[in-house]
């Protein structure tokens, strides 16, 4: 489904990714953990081609998306991205936030887009009474769930989450995590950068630990968390 080979990226001489290898099978959820500055966010952005890697290759569904011949815009449509800061469009209602990609990017008719929006908004438990609201009138948890719906509506083959609950308090995080868990259980292929151990334990098929631009450890979540082998993982999971 997703294969990353030898990915490298530098910013102004600082190497952020130092040859990352990663694989994710269809229907699986992989959690990516690591200290800040490890390169997790850059890695996700490379998968969606928001950032161009310097070296290495990324395959999605067997197609090499890093090849210069590939249409960036088409790849991004296939890959959903959920941001830490939600990044909803401020001037659009909840409903329009979800449908704008469908009508403008995918060229769907309004009715079709509405039908699709109804499905995904129900899936993230955003009730109809909120559809006419604007982002500034929503709680953080509601915003993030709308953002998930917006990404999901495009019918992506892969969902990327970049610390989706880091900007939320525990209560609001919970409602977002519930939605994410449900999606993962339904078999939405997901790559999730998060610090939520419960999420990893409950629904992730694998857990990768990243440090200084490299994946230093990978395995079933319960194993990595209980018996971390690398020093970086130990530092992450040992509760003092």
């Amino acid at each position, binding site marked *: 489904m997703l294969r990353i080979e030898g990915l490298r990226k530098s910013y102004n001489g600082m190497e952020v990714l130092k040859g990352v290898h990663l694989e994710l099978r269809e229907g699986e959820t992989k959690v990516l953990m690591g200290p800040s500055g490890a390169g997790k966010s850059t890695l996700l952005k490379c998968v*969606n081609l928001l950032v161009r890697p310097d070296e290495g290759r990324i395959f999605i569904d067997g197609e090499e998306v890093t090849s210069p011949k590939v249409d960036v815009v088409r790849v*991004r*449509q296939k890959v959903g991205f959920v*941001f830490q800061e939600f*990044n909803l*469009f401020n001037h659009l209602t909840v409903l329009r936030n979800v449908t704008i*990609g469908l009508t*403008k*990017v995918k060229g769907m008719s309004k009715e079709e887009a509405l039908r699709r929006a109804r499905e995904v908004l129900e899936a993230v438990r955003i009730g109809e009474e909120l559809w006419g*609201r604007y982002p500034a009138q929503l709680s953080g948890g509601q915003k993030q769930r709308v953002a998930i719906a917006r990404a999901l509506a495009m019918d992506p083959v892969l969902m990327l989450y970049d610390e989706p609950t880091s900007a939320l308090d525990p209560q609001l995080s919970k409602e977002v995590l519930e939605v994410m868990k449900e999606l993962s259980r339904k078999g939405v292929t997901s790559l999730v950068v998060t610090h939520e151990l419960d999420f990893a334990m409950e629904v992730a098929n694998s857990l990768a630990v990243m440090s200084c631009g490299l994946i230093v450890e990978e395995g079933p979540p319960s194993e990595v968390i209980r018996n971390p082998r690398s020093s970086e993982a130990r530092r992450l999971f040992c509760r003092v």
Partner: protein
Amino acid sequence: MQLLDYIPFLVEGVPWTLALVFSGLTMGFSLGLPLSLIEAFGSRGAKLVVDAYVWFLRGTPLLVLLSLLYWGIFPSLGIKVSPFIASIVALGLRSSAYQSQIFRSALLSIESGQLLAARAMGMRDSQVVMHVLVPQALRIALPSWSNEYAIMLKDSSICFTLGVMEILTRAKYISTATGSALFPFLIAGLLYLALTRAGVEAIELLHRKVRIPGTLGGE
């Protein structure tokens, strides 16, 4: 004829003044918005060119720009223009420089995360501009834009130097014809004042209608 009999003649200048202002604002908008996109997101070279354009137009008095266009540039290009058209071009060019600055700061105040999100869902740059940037920039810029209207309305009086039949030109006629200056110029001033207030109120009404609920200044 008594002074009061001249009032209709003076008021007939209002459509002329408004025509100057609306045409000037429209021209300024159609040039200023693309320029602001270059200023906010363009390459360094393109920005420099726009900066020079803005610097020239903001530093040249409208009167000089008008004279340069009407007597200098248009004739030397072999184009015959009426004073009315020359006035619109001068007002429009000058306004494009100001409007580009208004829209530039509006564009730059939009969080970059929204652009990232738009690109992440597969929007092309043109779609990001059309569906995410411009709709928000217009709303954010509306209060400053209302100020631009007020400035242009008053600046349009400068077109009397070319004899465009707007409010001030007519006031001058009346003053010459009747020998009284106080009355025609005072009425002219009050007309400008009323038009400014009316326009600013109308834009404020529009602003209340299109502002984004939940954001600063909305609700």
